[in-house]
């Protein structure tokens, strides 16, 4: 009996392990409540979602220094912050990479990059890599738009053209923010984009 039980448990664990790694499963889905976090910002402070008491929502972007797809979006991230922070949608960037694997993504290098690009938004390090798996981020950049109750309303790309801002035909994230601000459902609620895989030893 005991062996049967052990067998069943290991089978179900195996199954759980597989489902957790398959595709974008295992993380947050549209309608889920996003977990809060307390992570170190490049300015030395600790930032949490709960710090923003009057927020209408949150633009959480898993980001980093080294990835060319992120670099292509840095100016657009600055613009998004300028445009939406005052409307109650703060932008929060989180670097999920293990700095030991990617020295360019160390906390010190994050500080340098934030200064170079003049980031006015928090740029946090997911120290110990505990936050990105809860969100189900798989790449950088990877956007999660939350509403004021921290409910996930949009997951995906900032817009539909990473190469060239001029060539953008659909501003997925901005459209989603407008929808949330009006109490509507973003459409599309999920988009995909090419990005750099998150670097982890786990």
């Amino acid at each position, binding site marked *: 009996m005991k062996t049967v039980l052990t067998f069943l448990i290991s089978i179900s664990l195996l199954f759980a392990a597989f489902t957790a790694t*398959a*595709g*974008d499963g295992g993380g947050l889905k549209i309608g889920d409540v996003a977990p809060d976090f307390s992570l170190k910002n490049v300015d030395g402070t600790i930032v949490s979602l709960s710090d923003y008491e009057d927020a209408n929502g949150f633009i959480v972007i898993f980001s980093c220094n080294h990835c*060319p797809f992120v670099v292509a979006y840095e100016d657009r991230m600055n613009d998004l912050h300028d445009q939406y922070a005052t409307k109650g949608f703060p932008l929060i960037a989180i670097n999920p990479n293990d700095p030991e694997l*990617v020295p360019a993504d160390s906390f010190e290098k994050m500080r340098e990059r934030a200064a170079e690009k003049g980031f006015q938004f928090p740029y946090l390090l997911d120290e110990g890599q505990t936050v990105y798996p809860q969100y189900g981020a*798989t*790449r950088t950049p990877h956007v999660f738009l939350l509403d004021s109750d921290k409910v996930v309303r949009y997951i*995906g*790309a900032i817009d*539909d*053209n*990473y*190469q*060239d801002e001029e*060539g953008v*035909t659909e501003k*997925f994230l901005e459209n989603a923010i407008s929808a949330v601000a009006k109490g509507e459902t973003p459409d*599309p609620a999920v*988009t*995909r*984009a*090419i*990005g*750099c*895989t*998150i*670097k982890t030893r786990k």
Partner: protein
Amino acid sequence: MVRFLRLVTIIFLQKINALEKLLFLLSCNLLLFISPVMGSMGNSSNTAPPIGEVKVVNFDELEPLLCPNPEDNEVYIVNFFATWCKPCVEELPHFLELHRKYKDEGLHFVLVSLDFLRQLDSRLIPFIGEHQVEAEVFLLNDPYANEWIPKVSGDWTGAIPATLVCNGDKSEFFEKTFHSIGELEDIIKPFLKD
């Protein structure tokens, strides 16, 4: 080299009269016609393009080439990568080794680069030469990734490296890094004929 020849040709054409020009161009065309035939004579089993050749395509152009000729029952392994993507560069030698080992059993290797077009000459082409990449190499220059990622696989979130194996109507997709030729052999064996 091609650029150099083109330049020499232009200079040469400026120096000669019209009739000679016509004869020259005719002979050039003849040469172009003959050379691939001659090239294949001593090397009949190898149909791979010359190392260093990269075709720039959008997704509509790439899609039919990802798993062509489903009726011929050959196996295609397609790797999506970029020269700046560290895990991609690290896994590439395993793909090259796999291809060398199984090409006679009908395995084709297709490498799809997501490098930026402006880095084609400065990064991608030198990289392909340096790593002696014997494969069909494409630069997928199509920024509207939300449109084409699901056409490659419904399971792809968009992170690279990513790999597709296909054989006729059968295909399997992997959003992961491969660490050995053994791991790759495990995924292609079910596709190869006995």
